[in-house]
């Protein structure tokens, strides 16, 4: 019996595509608002082949990548410092917790005032989304996991930096990557949204591409962009989760150790 070898996760998307195809072909959906998937995919191939779509995609990825990278580095740094220094914790933690509770949409006007609607604003928004998530994950992980090993490092007279690199960061890395994974998902939405809604003419990016296609009525282009977005989001998440598993080779022992001894 080989039934369970078939990957059933393809069934639902295929059915959706078929329904979509049928609905457009039969005229249930207005032609001006929709296009059949076969036409969309054909268009997607052409757009990819000419490199036009790839250019926009690269631009979006660059924005997302730099935003997430800056946010992750800042969040890791402040998470580590605040978790290891009582003074810094007392001084900054309240403020950071307050700011972390501010919804992303509220940050938008602030960044627009400060940075305009150019690249800085888009990257800044992705940075904001990433920073708070990574900061909190790092902080909590180093407070809960690293503490018992910090004592060991104190006995062995390790320096502050040695403690950070040998104990705190390795203890937090799995949590940090989880936060980065969530940040990428949120950042992707944020980047798409600002490109779609708040971009000046010609600013580019996949969001702008979709918005432009919508405006001039190129329905196939619009859907091609959306499909690409989905595929990319899925692939990036897959890659990060693979990296996460690789880095935490030892984590089985840590989780079981914590479960058994706490």
């Amino acid at each position, binding site marked *: 019996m080989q039934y369970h070898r078939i990957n059933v996760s393809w069934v639902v998307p295929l059915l959706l595509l078929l329904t979509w195809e049928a609905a457009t072909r039969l005229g249930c959906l207005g032609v001006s608002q929709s296009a059949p998937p076969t036409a969309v995919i054909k268009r997607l191939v052409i757009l990819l082949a000419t490199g036009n779509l790839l250019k926009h995609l690269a631009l979006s990825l660059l924005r997302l990548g730099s935003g997430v990278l800056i946010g992750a580095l800042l969040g890791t740094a402040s998470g580590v410092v605040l978790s290891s220094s009582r003074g810094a914790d007392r001084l900054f933690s309240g403020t950071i917790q307050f700011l972390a509770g501010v919804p992303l949409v509220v940050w938008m006007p602030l960044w627009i005032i400060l940075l305009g609607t150019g690249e800085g604003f888009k990257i800044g928004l992705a940075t904001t989304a990433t920073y708070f998530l990574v900061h909190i994950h790092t902080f909590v992980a180093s407070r809960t996991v690293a503490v018992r090993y910090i004592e*060991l490092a104190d006995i062995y*007279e390790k320096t502050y930096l040695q403690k950070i690199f040998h104990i705190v960061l390795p203890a937090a890395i799995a949590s940090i990557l989880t936060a980065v994974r969530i940040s990428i998902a949120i950042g992707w939405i944020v980047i798409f949204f600002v490109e779609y809604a708040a971009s000046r003419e010609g600013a580019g990016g996949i969001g702008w591409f979709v918005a432009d296609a919508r405006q001039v009525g190129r329905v196939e282009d619009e859907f091609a962009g959306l499909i690409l977005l989905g595929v990319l989001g899925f692939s990036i998440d897959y890659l990060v989760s693979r990296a996460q598993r690789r880095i935490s080779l030892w984590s089985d022992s840590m989780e079981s150790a914590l479960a058994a001894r706490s």
Partner: protein
Amino acid sequence: MNALLKVNIESMRYPDQQDQGDLIQDLSFSVPEFTTTSLLGPSGCGKTTLLRIIAGLETHFRGQVLLGDREVLRPSRQIQVVFQDSRLIPWKTVGGNVWFAGAEENASQTDGSMERALEAVGLQGRRDSWPRTLSGGEEGRVALARVLVQPPRLLLLDEPFKDLDIVLKSKLEAYLVDVLQKNQITGLHISHRVEDAVFLSDTVHCVSARPMRISRTFQIELPRPRRRRDRGFVELTDQILEHASVVP
């Protein structure tokens, strides 16, 4: 004999347990150099807290801890601890764990002291293994290898090898005695198990709970190596147990 460790604690209570009275009160004792002393007391009586004070990990107390003629104010390599769990760092290999116990300046990874320590506990083949792949006995041996890289003057033993079965535990305890003697390390051991204390130590202090105080002291003059089934061993164990059972 010279006392290496002098402990004198007037009082100790955790800041968040102000209403429960002192955990430790007027506790003073000393540990002569190159001998091992056990503190024997019921679970939860503050033994681990006392050990943390002596190691310099706990500072919420009134009193003084002297190592030689220096006051202990912070943790240091001079006073190392074998914790209840072996406390191996999960993201470091066996070799990495032992290496981490060495001082950077003597570069234990190049001068071979890490390898020698692993060899001494018979784990040279496990250098690159992850801690999660070790058996309980191997974990205990890595914890001892860590002591061997740069032996301390005083070794604190917090119910070591607690989770191991009795056969493995006896083996490791015998090995521990060996390590202490060969390296001239002074030991302070805490436990609630009379047998372990009689096996390891030259002096056993029985302590009461809340506040923790010494109720009686036994000198263990049995010859080494000690055997748990010898008559002298059993008699002494019974004697201590009898005392321990009348202490509240």
